[in-house]
């Protein structure tokens, strides 16, 4: 009996059945179908083993860093503790969730609300728009290794953001969502669900931050992006958790006919951060652009796993993950392009580029292709290059100090992705997070 208890403790860590019951008690007002799903998810989480060294999906990962011990559910916080944050410019709306509670909201602009756009918390959406939420919330399978942690996310998902744009509606200003974790040891389960119907157009900026001085935290978040026929969805995620945080982010993108999905992920924070991104190109003309920038320093580890599945003819995808590594930082990129047998004329691209600013940093790349159609164009590649000494000298010879020179060269390296952000305020928000990394 004693051995059973200790076994289950190592499998669920701090997230015991008692803690789950406490969480359920907080969300019991939500629809029964959702609570049932959460119970099932918890059972799955508890039953699934921890990743092992021999698991292909965890090659190179620091497994002992994944311990789930020592965290507790997010406590209610004093609203005054949170400073008001905004996009730095007029957006279509802002939602700031601290420890899952709304502490600040700039409601959706009336002209969009009148057209049927919904921008609210996930809890409210579950209560009022269950029919819109249910088909899309965590509806895609987990295929990249984190089945256990995805189940944990679903079991404890408490609140998040819901964005719904009806057909033919364009939201021409960005929507800003801030997920804020307060308090040492806090476990946060943020989620952003975006549903863009036929020919809808929307831009979402999703920020992830810790309270000042926060120590170790646990962030286990996800986003679902659904782009209906002809929809254009731009999604920016800026992960800037405290430097002691263990972070998971799970993305699932569904792209229908003639869609344009652009997702840009900036990874700056956390002690160890795992990002899994799964794109399905389901109908002809679908296009998904998956871009990521990682600025890794100290002993940070960023573990990125991606899957692009082409399920229909004439679909295209473009993945570009750029990592800049300083100090003893480590990155892992493992990407797979899958082309189904009838997905002819697929055009898929996958690239991982690493800029090494230190001889002690470590970048691992595992690009992959699995092609079952015969008329496709698929390319993939990975490169790692040391920062160019002549470029450094050139910048320094103009009076720029070595740290600033490296910062400029990293920005130059990132520009290919940063240049795709049309909104200048969002561009500046990303740039500021990157700049901060050179001040530490």
């Amino acid at each position, binding site marked *: 009996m004693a051995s059973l208890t200790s076994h289950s403790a190592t499998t669920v860590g701090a997230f015991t059945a008692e803690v789950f019951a406490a969480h359920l008690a907080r969300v019991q007002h939500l629809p029964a179908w959702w609570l049932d799903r959460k119970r099932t998810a918890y059972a799955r989480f508890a039953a699934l083993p921890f990743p092992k060294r021999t698991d292909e999906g965890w090659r190179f990962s620091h497994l002992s860093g994944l311990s789930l011990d020592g965290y507790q559910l997010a406590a209610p916080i004093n609203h005054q503790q949170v400073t008001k944050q905004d996009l730095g410019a007029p957006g279509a709306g802002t939602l700031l969730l601290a420890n899952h509670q709304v502490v600040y909201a700039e409601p959706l602009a009336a002209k969009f609300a009148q057209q049927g756009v919904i921008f609210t918390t996930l809890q409210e959406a579950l209560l009022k728009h269950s029919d819109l939420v249910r088909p899309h919330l965590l509806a895609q399978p987990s295929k990249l290794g984190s089945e256990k942690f995805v189940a944990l996310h679903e079991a404890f998902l408490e609140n998040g953001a819901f964005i719904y744009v009806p057909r033919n509606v364009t939201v021409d200003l960005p929507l800003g969502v801030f997920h804020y974790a307060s308090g040492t040891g806090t476990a946060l389960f943020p989620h952003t669900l975006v549903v863009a119907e036929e020919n809808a157009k929307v831009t979402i900026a999703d920020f992830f931050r810790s309270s000042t001085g926060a120590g170790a935290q646990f962030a286990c978040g996800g986003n679902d992006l659904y782009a209906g026929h002809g929809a254009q969805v731009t999604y920016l995620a800026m992960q800037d958790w405290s430097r002691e945080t263990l972070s998971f982010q799970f993305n699932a993108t569904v792209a229908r006919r003639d869609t344009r999905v652009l997702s840009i992920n900036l990874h700056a924070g956390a002690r160890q951060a795992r990002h899994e991104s799964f794109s399905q190109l389901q109908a002809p003309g679908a296009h998904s652009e998956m871009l990521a920038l990682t600025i890794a320093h100290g002993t940070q580890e960023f573990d990125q796993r991606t899957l692009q599945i082409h399920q229909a003819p004439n679909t295209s995808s473009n993945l570009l993950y750029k990592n800049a590594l300083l100090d003893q930082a480590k990155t892992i990129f493992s990407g797979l392009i899958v082309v189904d047998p009838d997905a002819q004329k697929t055009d898929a691209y996958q690239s991982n580029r690493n800029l090494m600013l230190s001889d002690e940093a470590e970048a691992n790349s595992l690009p992959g292709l699995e092609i079952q159609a015969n008329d496709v164009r698929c390319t993939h590649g990975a490169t790692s290059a040391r920062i160019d000494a002549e470029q450094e000298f050139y910048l*320094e010879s103009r009076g720029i100090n070595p740290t600033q020179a490296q910062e400029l060269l990293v920005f130059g390296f990132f520009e290919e992705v940063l240049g795709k952000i049309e909104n200048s305020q969002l561009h500046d928000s990303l740039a500021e997070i990157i700049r901060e990394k050179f001040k530490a």
Partner: protein
Amino acid sequence: MSLLEIKNLHISIGDKAIVKGFNLTIKPGEVHAIMGPNGTGKSTLAKAIAGHPSYTITGGDVILDGKSILAMQPDERARSGLFLAFQYPSEIPGVSIANFLRAAVQARMAEGEELDASGYYKKLYSKMDLLKIDRKFTSRAVNDGFSGGEKKRCEILQMAMLEPHFALMDETDSGLDIDALRIVADGVNTLRSGPLGILLITHYQRLLDYIVPDFVHVMYDGRIVKSGNKSLALELEAKGYDWVKQEFAAANA
């Protein structure tokens, strides 16, 4: 008074001695041309003075305004008033000229002092107007995909913005056709009117038709072997470097 003194300078690449006792003093407003055959240490001299890590200074000193710069890092040397115009400027993809120059200007300000953006652009545009450079130029990435002439104009623009006391211009004419050469020389001549001292390194006399030097020095085997005025350059043009080599060989025989 501002002064650049190069005293008995010895420079090696690895174990190989390249510059072997180079002496020269440059005063404000003076243009000194250094000519000489390939492989004689001209570019090594310029890069080592700027602090390039591939070169080791094994003896002598370089004194800028009374202070030795040899213990300084390359960025400190630049902030002290030295500027190297590169023979082959690096390409920096993704970094616009405007942002690059802004960082360089900011680097010269006291800690905590914020750059005034409108003042910066005002100055940048006035320098560009002075050098007849199109304003669209600054949104391009530094030297990325530039022609030879554009790269050298970019160097001159940087020099104009950073206002050094002394400029080391390394083979500024290399890779330029005659039109590009004229444009670049016009730029240098525009900046020359002030207190700027210039060390102009060149292999060919033709550059000196456009940038007329106050002094001409012939460098051979790592040191100055002959000095004179503009007419020395013309003599070299007529006689070729073999004349210098023979004279040097005779003197050392």
